[in-house]
C-alpha cells in the first residue's frame, strides 16, 4: 500500500468552523489554523486538540457531540466539506481519520442543517424529533415478563437478517442532513421495516406505519422525493429500499383501516 499513514508526515490544515452561541443567536464561520495533525488521529481528536489550544489561550472551545467514538452511538455528526460525516463511505465522523486529508487542505465544518434539528450550540443540534418518532410507534407492546420462550417463534434467517440490516440504524441524523428536503424517511423506515419484517411486529403494524409517518410530518421533516442522498450518506449503509417498504406499509394501513 502506498502512503502507509504511519509514514506520512504531520499536516497543517485550515479549518472553517461554524460558530453559534445558541439556537436564537446568528451563527458564522470562523477560521482556525491547525498544525501538526497526525494522519493517525481521528477527526474528533483533531478537534479535541484544537479545543485544548483554544482553552489554553483563553478562547472558546468548539462544542460538538460525541460519545462512543466507535461509530455506534450516533452521537457525533458533522457536515465536513459539504458532506454529512465527511468523505469516507460508511463512516461516522468519529471513525473518520485524518489520513483521509492532505497537508494544506481547507476543511469546512458545519452542524447538521435541518428545520427539525435546531442548533443548540456551534456544531451541536437537537435531534429529539427522532425520539418522538420512535415514541409514536417504534416498538412492540410487550411488557417485561410477558414473553414466551424465544425459540417458540422460528423466524427465517433471511427475514431476520433483513430486519437486522434495518435495525443497524444509529439514529445519527446524517440522512436528514444529506437530504435536499431534510426528510427523515430513511430513519423512520428503518424502524418500520425492522418490525414489519418480523412476526413480533405484525400485530401493531398498521398503527405503527401511520403514527410514525404522521409524527415525522408533524416534526417538520420534508417529504421523500427519492434523491437517494440519504443512503449515500448513511454510515451504516441503511438501504433506501426500506423507504419503499415503509410507503407500502403506509398505503396498506391507510387502505385497510378506517
Amino acid at each position, binding site marked *: 500500500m502506498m502512503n502507509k499513514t504511519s509514514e506520512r508526515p504531520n499536516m497543517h490544515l485550515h479549518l472553517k468552523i461554524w460558530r453559534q452561541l445558541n439556537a436564537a443567536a446568528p451563527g458564522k464561520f470562523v477560521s482556525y489554523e491547525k498544525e501538526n495533525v497526525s494522519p493517525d488521529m481521528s477527526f474528533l481528536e483533531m478537534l479535541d486538540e484544537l479545543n485544548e489550544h483554544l482553552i489554553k489561550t483563553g478562547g472558546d472551545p468548539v462544542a460538538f457531540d460525541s460519545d462512543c467514538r466507535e461509530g455506534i*452511538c450516533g452521537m457525533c455528526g458533522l457536515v465536513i466539506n459539504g458532506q454529512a460525516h465527511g468523505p469516507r463511505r460508511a463512516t461516522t465522523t468519529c471513525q473518520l481519520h485524518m489520513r483521509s486529508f492532505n497537508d494544506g487542505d481547507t476543511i469546512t465544518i458545519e452542524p447538521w442543517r435541518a428545520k427539525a434539528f435546531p442548533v443548540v450550540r456551534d456544531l451541536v443540534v437537537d435531534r429529539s424529533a427522532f425520539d418522538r418518532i420512535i*415514541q409514536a410507534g417504534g416498538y412492540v407492546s410487550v411488557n*417485561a415478563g410477558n414473553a414466551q420462550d424465544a425459540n417458540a417463534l*422460528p423466524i427465517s434467517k433471511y427475514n431476520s437478517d433483513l430486519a437486522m440490516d434495518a435495525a443497524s440504524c*444509529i439514529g445519527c441524523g446524517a440522512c436528514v442532513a444529506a437530504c435536499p428536503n431534510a426528510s427523515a424517511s430513511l430513519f423512520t423506515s428503518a424502524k418500520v421495516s425492522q418490525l414489519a419484517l418480523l412476526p413480533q411486529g405484525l400485530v401493531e403494524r398498521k398503527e405503527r406505519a401511520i403514527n410514525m409517518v404522521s409524527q415525522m410530518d408533524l416534526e417538520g421533516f420534508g417529504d421523500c422525493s427519492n434523491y437517494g442522498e440519504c443512503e449515500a450518506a448513511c454510515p451504516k449503509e441503511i438501504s433506501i429500499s426500506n423507504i419503499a417498504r415503509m410507503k407500502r406499509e403506509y398505503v396498506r394501513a391507510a387502505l385497510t383501516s378506517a
Partner: protein
Amino acid sequence: MTLDAKIPVGPIQEKWDKHRFNMKLVNPANKRKYTIIVVGTGLAGASAAASLGELGYNVQNFCIQDSPRRAHSIAAQGGINAAKNYPNDGDSVWRLFYDTVKGGDYRSREANVYRLAQVSNNIIDQCVAQGVPFAREYGGLLSNRSFGGAQVSRTFYARGQTGQQLLLGAYSSLSRQIKEKKVAMFTRHEMLDLVVIDGKARGIVTRNLITGKIESFAADAVLLATGGYGNVYYLSTNAVNSNATAVWRAHKRGAYFANPCFVQIHPTCIPVTGDHQSKLTLMSESLRNDGRVWVPKAKGDKRPANEIPEEERDYYLERRYPAFGNLVPRDIASRAAKQVCDEGRGVGKTGLAVYLDFADAIKRLGRKAIEEKYGNLFEMYERITDENPYNVPMRIFPAIHYTMGGLWVDYNLQSTVPGLFVLGEANFSDHGANRLGASALMQGLADGYFVAPYTVGNYIGSNKFEPVTTDHPAFKASEKEVDDLVKKLLAVNGTKTAHELNRELGLIMWEYVGMGRSEEGLKKALEEIPKLREEFWKSIKVAGTGETLNQNLEEAGRLADYLELAELIARDALNRRESCGGHFREESQTPEGEAKRDDENYSYVAAWEFKGTEEAPELHKESLTFEHVPLTQRSYK
C-alpha cells in the same frame, strides 16, 4: 454499621422465588402515587424505567446524552449469555452460575449470581418478543457462540452489535412508556447530587447541560444505573462521556463503595497510536473464537508477521492453557499479553501489542464465513489502523474495559442508603473480581427487567413516606453545594486542561494500579494522586461560563471526582494483599506466575465508607461463603 446482604434463607434454587412471595406488594391503583427516579438509560436504566412504568409507577428518567438510545451500552459488541442450552451442549442454570462464580475468582455472592443465571433465560425471551434481531440459523432458531471462560456455547448475539440491539429494544419499551406518560424523560441532565432526607434517598440535583440550570427532583426512591468508572484511567474502551460522578456523589452521601480495585482489563483492544488518543477501541472477545493469539518466539523479532515461519511463532495461550486455549478469561489473557511484551516479544512499532491472527480460520471456514461473523469488526479495525485484518494479523493490546467494583448493594440491589438502589455496571454485585464476557449485558437487563421492579416495589410497599418537595432545605443545601462547585471550577483559571490532568491521572493509575500491582507501586500511587488532586485545584483551566452548554466544564467536574475515586481504588488495591481475578498483586502469585488467592484472609467484599475527602475511609467487610461452588484455585489448563 454492619453490612447485611439480606440474602433470603433456604436452598439457593428457591431463594428468589420465596423472596418474591414474601415481598410486600403495592396496590395497582396506588402505584401512580409514587415517584421513582431512574438515573441512566443504558441497559440497566432503560429496562428499569420501562418496567417500572409498565407496572404503573410514576417514573422520571435521566441521562446525559441527547437521547436515551445513546447510552454506553450501545457499544457492546459480542453478546449476551443465557442458560438456555439450545445447543444441547450441557449448559444449565447451575453451570452458568458455577462458571460465573468461578470466573469471578470467588469474590461474588453466590445467591446473587444464582438469581442472575435463573433470570438469564427470561431476558432472551423478552428481547426476542421486543423484536431484537438476534442471529439465527437457517432453520429459523436462535444461534449461539462461545465466549471466554466457558466450555459451552451460551452467548446470543446480533452480529457484532449486540449491545446496540438490546439497548434499542429497551429504548423501544422506554419510548412506549414515555408516550403513555408513565415515564418523563430528561435528556442532557447530569445528576450532580443525591438528596437524603431522614435517612432515605428522596431525590437528586441535576445540571441542565444546555442551559446550565441547577434543578432538583423529589421522589420516593432513586435508582442509579449510571455505568462504570473505567475512565478514571483516562484511556479505556468506555464512551468518552462515561463517568463516575453519580456514584461518587452518592458515595459521599452515605452509599458504601465496594471492591473499587476490581477493574477489568480487556485483552483485545486496538493499541495506542499517540498522545492525541482520546479512547481505546475494543475488538470483541468473540474474535478469540476464531483468532489465534501469538508473538514471535525470539525477542526483538521485527520481521513482518507473514515472514515469521510457523515454528518461530509462540501461540502462548494455546501453549500455556491447552484446555481453554485462546478462550481463557480476560484477566488471564491480558496478563499473559503483558508478560510476553515485558519479555521484549511484543510486536508493532511500540512493542506493546500481540497478534490476533485469522489466517487459519479463513483457510478453514472461508473468508465469507469470517466476514459474516465479524465483518463489522474487521471494518472498524481497518478504519482505525489502515490495515486489513483479512490479510495481516490484527495487533491488539489490553486496555481498561469494565469495572466490577461499584456501589455496595444487598440482595435487593439496595445500597447502604435506604431507598437508593444501584443497577448494572454501577453496582458491584455479580461479577466478583473478574467479569466473564457477555455477562454485563445479562446483568444489566436482569437488574432492570426482572430484579429491581420487584425489590423497589417491596421497598415502597414496606415503608411510609412523608411527603417531600424540592423546597425542603436538604434540596436547597444540595443545590447550593452543586452551584458552588461549578463556580469553584470556573474560578481557578489556571493553566492546565481537564484532558491533560486526566491523562496524567491515567498514567499513574495504569502504571501502579493497572495489570500488575505491588505494595511499593500502590504506596507511590497513594502519594501521587493527592498531589495531582491538589494541582488540579490550583491549575485547572475551564473555558466559558456555567450558564450555557459547556462540555469543558462537564469534563472538569467529572475529573474532580475521578481524582478522589482514584485514591480509593489504590487504597483498596493496597488493602487486598492477594491476587484474584483482575486484581493481580505481584506479591501473591504461584511459581508459574498465575494469580494466587488468599481465601483465608480475603474472602470478603471490601465496602468503603466515605469520611471526608482528606480523611481515610473506613473499611467494612462483608464476608463471603461458598456453599455450592467449592473454593479452588482457578485453572484453565
